């Protein structure tokens, strides 16, 4: 294809003398700064061509009527390209484009016609650039294909189906007016447990198994005032109207670090930084628990957590929000709730939705945050909290029976899996 190009008169000149910008740089190499006038004297009408290109490449700088050398190029691409073309070497398409633009080369029409004629003579299989550019395609009958055959398989790239599912839920919650919250993977026990009124060394902290860390195992607790309030609330209820857990709270236990065991840490952190009233927040976070791995327990899992804050919210609004979420996220209208237990919410409920194929599925927990949680964190309003076991929903949506397949290692499956609609 390269021989389709002819070097123009200007191009031939540059080939001989070097491009104006090269010549400019060579002048500057010796003097470092030269006046424009001087350049005009030496390079004549090519003076401004040289200055403009050298400026564009970032080699020179124009200050008042002086030209300064800014950067000494190691190679001159245009000069090299012209030389290569002259020597009938292959050139990159981008380089050809530049040369064409600067009118240093032109397409060789004669060559194109010759090539097209040659193709016709040899028998045309494909429509080619030469056939189109020469107009000779008019003289050609294209052989018919068996169009029911595809040929080779093409694999484009696409999102991971599970990621796509999580993104859909994120988008849904944003559209419902929820603001996303975040929290670090390696979390203080304080935020994972203590701020959520889960007593130290007590079964109410055992509702979930947690990992502990070999290193690092201790972090910095937040400001003293908050620590003091949480401590008092655990010990005697402080001003929350509670008896508290009646034990001596130990700050060193709260300062231990663990991998986040549930996404509710995000809610605790959000409540501690004076959220607006009313407001809605959510988080989709990866969580870590040392469960025995099986079809329903993965090494890691995602939780989707949310809170709704307002002055006058009750248990009835709690059910209302769960109904809305089920409808919007799962597309199911029929729900049921039943009593459940979480140390940080009271009342606590479990949410079931009636799936058309699977029947009643349990997929979320919810409740109203206890005063022992909200008041020490500085929130006087009612806070409704909910958490969705999002992996279970993902499995249903992606038609998987084993939770471990969410993090599949099977490239074929990823390539062939149909997209969400």
């Amino acid at each position: 294809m390269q021989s389709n190009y002819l070097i123009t008169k200007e191009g031939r000149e540059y080939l001989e003398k070097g491009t104006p910008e090269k010549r400019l740089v060579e002048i500057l190499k010796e003097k470092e700064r030269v006046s424009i006038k001087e350049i005009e004297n030496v390079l004549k009408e090519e003076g401004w061509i040289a200055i403009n290109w050298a400026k564009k490449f970032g080699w020179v700088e124009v200050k008042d009527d002086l030209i300064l050398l800014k950067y000494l190029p190691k190679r001159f691409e245009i000069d090299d390209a012209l030389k290569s073309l002259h020597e009938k070497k292959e050139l990159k398409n981008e380089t050809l484009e530049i040369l064409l633009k600067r009118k240093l080369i032109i397409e060789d029409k004669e060559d194109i016609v010759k090539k097209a004629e040659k193709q016709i003579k040899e028998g045309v299989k494909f429509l080619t650039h030469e056939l189109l550019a020469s107009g000779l395609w008019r003289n050609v009958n294209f052989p018919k294909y068996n169009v029911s055959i595809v040929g080779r398989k093409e694999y484009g790239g696409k999102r991971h189906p599970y990621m796509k599912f999580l993104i859909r839920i994120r988008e849904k919650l944003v559209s419902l007016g929820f603001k996303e919250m975040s929290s670090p993977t390696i979390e203080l026990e304080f935020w994972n447990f203590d701020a959520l009124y889960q007593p130290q060394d007590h079964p109410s902290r055992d509702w979930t198994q947690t990992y502990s860390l070999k290193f690092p195992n201790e972090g910095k607790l937040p400001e003293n005032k908050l620590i003091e309030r949480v401590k008092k609330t655990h010990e005697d209820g402080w001003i929350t109207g509670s008896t508290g857990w009646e034990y001596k709270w130990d700050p060193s236990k709260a300062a231990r670090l663990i991998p986040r065991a549930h996404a509710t840490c995000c809610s605790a952190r959000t409540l501690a930084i004076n959220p607006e009233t009313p407001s809605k927040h959510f988080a989709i976070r990866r969580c870590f628990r040392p469960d025995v791995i099986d079809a329903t327990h993965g090494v890691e899992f995602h939780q989707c957590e949310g809170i709704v804050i307002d002055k006058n919210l009750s248990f009835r609004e709690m059910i209302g929000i769960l109904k809305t979420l089920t409808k919007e996220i799962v597309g199911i209208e029929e729900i049921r709730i039943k009593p459940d237990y979480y140390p940080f919410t009271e009342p606590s409920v479990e949410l079931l939705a009636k799936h058309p194929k699977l029947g009643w599925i349990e997929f979320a927990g919810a409740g109203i945050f206890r005063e022992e949680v909200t008041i020490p964190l500085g929130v006087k309003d009612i806070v409704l909290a909910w958490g969705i076991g999002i992996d279970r929903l993902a499995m249903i949506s992606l038609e998987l029976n084993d939770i471990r397949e969410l993090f599949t290692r099977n490239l074929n499956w990823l390539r062939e899996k149909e997209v969400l609609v």
Partner: protein
Amino acid sequence: MPKIEINIEDFFNLLGKRIEKNELEKIFEYAKSEVEEISNEIVKIEIKDTNRPDLWSTEGLARELRGRLKLERGLPKYSVKKSNYKVFVDSKLDRTTVCAVVENVKLNSEALKQVIQIQEKIATSFGRNRKEVAIGVYDKDKINFPLFFIGERPENIRFVPLDFDKEMNAIEILEKHPKGIEYRNLLEGKEKYPIFVDSKGKIISMPPIINSDDTKVTENTKNVFIECSGTNNRAMELALIVLVALLAERKGAIRSVEVAKIEFERFGERIKCISCGSDKVNLIPWLGCVYECKSCGAKLPIVEKGKNLKIVKDSIITPNTKPKKIIVELSYINKISGLDLKLNEIKNLLLNARYEIKRVSNDKLELLYPCYRFDIMHQRDVVEDILISYGFDNIPPKDIKLYTIGSEIPIEKFKNEMAEILIGLGFQEIMSYMLTSKKNLFEKMNRKEKEIVEIENPISENWSVFRDFLVPSILEFISLNQHVAHPQKIFEIGTCVILEDKEAKDIEKLSAAISDTKAGYEDIAPCLDAFLRNLKLKYELIPTINESFIEGRVAKIVVEKKEVGIIGELNPYVLEKWNIVFPVAAFEINVNEILSLVSKIRK
């Protein structure tokens, strides 16, 4: 969450009503319980409330549900008869005890199972694996009061432990008995081990390890002695009340036990009563101290301090089965429930939850609730009980109409944009675990091991550290797809956890790789170039050395003088370690850095 097994016929008997099998599930919801499995007569139940041990038995569930089903409402009544049963506790002991006797109890095999089951569950959870509380249940007729809870050197402790047929000393018990092996860490290193001794000098148990075999309860046991011993008073009290209330369901009559702390002093070889001087005295076995004078009838305390022994504290009488009190406001109940409940309605709902109203003054209700409830800390807890009685199914939902503006975290949005560029370049997204092994991160990557965020109690070495580098996740994926059609172009955007000044920090990273029969720098570099051009980032690739990549074919990616990533051809040494037989070229980029650079440049 505690899982228990109950016998359904036994449950119906205690409940006083038969329930259809298909309704069982719904009934148990009242007790926050879930039926996991029904086979023949055995029902496996999961009780979700980890803070309500009073529900962890057939007896407890029946008691709760009699209320919810309106078969027996209000407070369960317990009368505790006074008795002369005494337990003396050595004040030097690092633990104490609370005790009770339940007489004329009807222990069928189911009741026995429940006692053993709940004992284990409470000792494991509230007892923190028996560290804070262990529970002993004995055939009271096999022991002679008063009892002594004292410390003794392990070599002197000899008795036949439960389910064994020969006498062993304490050291042997810790070495050979299954419970000894399981819990010996609680006693190891102590000079003296705690034992319960009866007034005839018989050792009846060595808490928190094991009881003696001959005092064990059987179906023939009529009278039961219970001790809850340990270091956590609240948990000990809870364990005792829950057990006593359980046995009360089996028609037992509760009798109190006096627990007194004493200081012992040896009086010399010849032991005399301080009051009358007589040497006809009953001695505390093992310690040789006087606790009763047969001649003048003097009982503890009969001596002055420093002479023989002395009660150091007022004795306590256990168990305390009196109902507890809480005050709730009518307006608060309606605010939280969202219902407009009248006093009379509330009263009825409370009776079903086994509460009673003692007094009403204006908005305030003074309530009594059963002694076995240790979970009620706030009036909010009472509201939940009212709502459960009301029935969650009967509560009408109310829509929330709040205008709020939603938004996502900027980095999540940015991650999606980046993924879109890579997908356009033909890369397939993958997702991997953040947990991995040191072997994957270091040895297989030809990297020197360094300090990293590490789990102390991993379930497997395979998932014991947090990744600080994304390329190993990609290589693992490729290694498992060697047989799949090439070229393979894959990418992952995921969280890594790095250490910065010894502190763990999340870093979002992106890695993309090409693997094919021939895949090299010239294949991956244009992809990186396209990627960064789409972000309008000017970059430089500066040769570097990285042991995971081929020397001379690896570069640092530098944007605005900041190193943001690495690109290169994977070292064949590394590929061989992963059993990868197709070359791989890859780049990895720090997404947080890139986002801050993009935001800075575009401002």
